[in-house]
């Protein structure tokens, strides 16, 4: 075993909750991202469709994840994140990394950042960019 491999294996694996918020059924992108994160060595819990803000907050807490990731393509990202933010804060998860991807118009990015979603990956983002961002920003 080389030194580099050893340092990787002793490092704790990054644990990600990837959720499909609301009623949106477009899961192709979310599932592609799950595979990319798993290929990058992360542990991923994929929620499946139709998660409420309460369910996402509960799973994030129960599973003790490093990253809370949402994939939204049907336009309800702002109302959903507005409801999710206080729930995550109430569970003291504000130190975790919050990221969101999907159909996210540029005009909404500031509002998403203000809601605590620092990693924003609109349609067209590269898989490696998502992986790299998570690696760099997980505390």
């Amino acid at each position, binding site marked *: 075993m080389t030194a580099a491999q050893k340092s990787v294996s002793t490092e704790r694996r990054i644990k990600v909750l990837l959720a499909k918020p609301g*009623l*949106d*059924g*477009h899961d192709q992108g979310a599932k592609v991202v799950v*595979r990319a994160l798993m290929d990058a060595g992360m542990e991923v819990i994929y929620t499946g469709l139709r998660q409420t803000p309460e369910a996402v907050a509960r799973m994030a807490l129960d599973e003790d994840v490093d990253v809370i990731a949402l994939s939204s393509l049907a*336009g*309800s990202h702002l*109302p959903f994140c507005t409801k999710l933010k206080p729930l995550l804060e109430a569970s003291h998860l504000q130190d975790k990394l919050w990221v969101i991807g999907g159909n996210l*118009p540029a005009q909404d990015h500031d509002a998403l950042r203000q809601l605590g979603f620092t990693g924003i990956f609109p349609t*067209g983002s590269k898989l490696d960019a998502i992986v790299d961002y998570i690696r760099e920003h997980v505390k």
Partner: protein
Amino acid sequence: MNDRAKDELKPITNESGIEVKPLYTAVDVEKSGGLSMLGQPGEYPFTRGIHRLMYRKQPWTMRQYAGFGNPADTNKRFKYLIANGQTGLNVAFDLPTQIGLDSDDPLAEGEIGRVGMSVDTLRDFEVAFDGIDLNKITVSLTINGAAAILIAMYLAMAEKRGYDVKQLRGTAQNDILKEFIGRGTWIFPVEHSIRLVGDTIEYCAEHAPKYSPVSVCGYHIRESGANPAQEMAYAFCIAKAYADDVIKRGLHVDEFAGRLSYNFNIFGNLFEQVAKFRAGRGLWAKIMKEQYKAEKPGSMWLRMIAAGGGGGLTFEQPEVNIVRGAYYALISALSGTQTMALCSYDEAYTIPTEYSARISLRTMQLLIEEMGLTETVDPLGGSFYVETLTNQMRQKMEEIMAEVDAQGGIVKLIAEGAIQSKVSAQAYRMQRDIESGKFRKVGVNCYRNEKEEEHPVEFHPYKEEDARAQIAALDKIRAERDPSRVSQALARLSADASAGRNVMPALVEAVKAYATVGEMTQEMVNIFGRYQEPIRF
């Protein structure tokens, strides 16, 4: 071409896994199986088209997908599209409607009217289709989980307006099995979902024999990551599952198969897609004739909408999507489709504006009016390449269908999440190939602009006040309707669902009593339960 030149060429394989040669001759056609499946248009096996004269007699129906906000907003957009020459309607519903929630359900908050029109009761259909002649403009309802309810609603609305339901044409998507693979608007567990599709087919065969209760969709399976051969093969497996359910009830195949229709995707390699459609027509006819012993030609027809192309459009350089859309429309015309629709150039961003929807409509009209696409039937027929590829695509589809059967059948594979896992793994590989530049996408991994400019996309507004108005309208209906009539109708629905009787008569009665989509769905959830999504990678 001499051997040395050939050696220097890199092999090319299409998405379906068929190697593409630099040149095709009559020898390739013979080696791939010859022309035994070609026939004449309008004759078995219908490879060249289901009608003898095809577009020469009547061009394809143009049916852009539309719907948003409340029914009054949608009615306005429908009338705009019709005024601009559209010949059919394809209704988009919001997500609460699609999964059987009323607008005042807490889970519907923020989603009312967002991606389609919101529908709670029959009153909404009365408003949405007001002033539209249902004999002249056929209506397609893009609804799946709640399809039985919305078909009942459409038939009740037409009857109330004085139409003879026996003569009424129209289509519902109502393909629930593909919703488990992609799109995701399922409600009930798999077996009950199939039973509901069977209920609609059985009911329409008797009461609305010209209505198409199902449009089996390869489209969304392709969007989820399937290749073109899989798209069609899986759709055929799904159609067979519905047909088997109806035949078990004692109907003969010729009593319903003529009203089954299909929905396929049009993005990708032009020749591969055209071959897909021609191959699919022959294969479906063969399946219906040989396996199902259909006798009526209509039962063997692959009637379809070849449309959309969303999976091929790009977020980058969106105006280039106008040109992509034009090529996709060409594919659709060359495929011999009955109906066409195009995703608009701005759909990676937003609900299409009137402007972008009109560009899509003009694109299709251009093919009819200027480009000669309607003058001759199956104009690519006889091309060495297209005929060879048609034979090869048909063989691929047969292989995929045999593989599904060998693994226990499509229903089992979907219920276990196996198909979902397979196509999602393919979507991942495709995304990696696009990112590495191996699979070329203009504006995405090649020919990118030095500095991508801000694009002129106008966002469709979400109006909170429309959502509130929809809830207020629902409150009013709840207050005005006859509560005893509603509760009797819902009790009958519950009893029929529980006893395994066809639920359609009870749904029609409940719809007429102004029961809500949410109430009817809940009655059935109480009996059938809810689907639990298998998570499998």
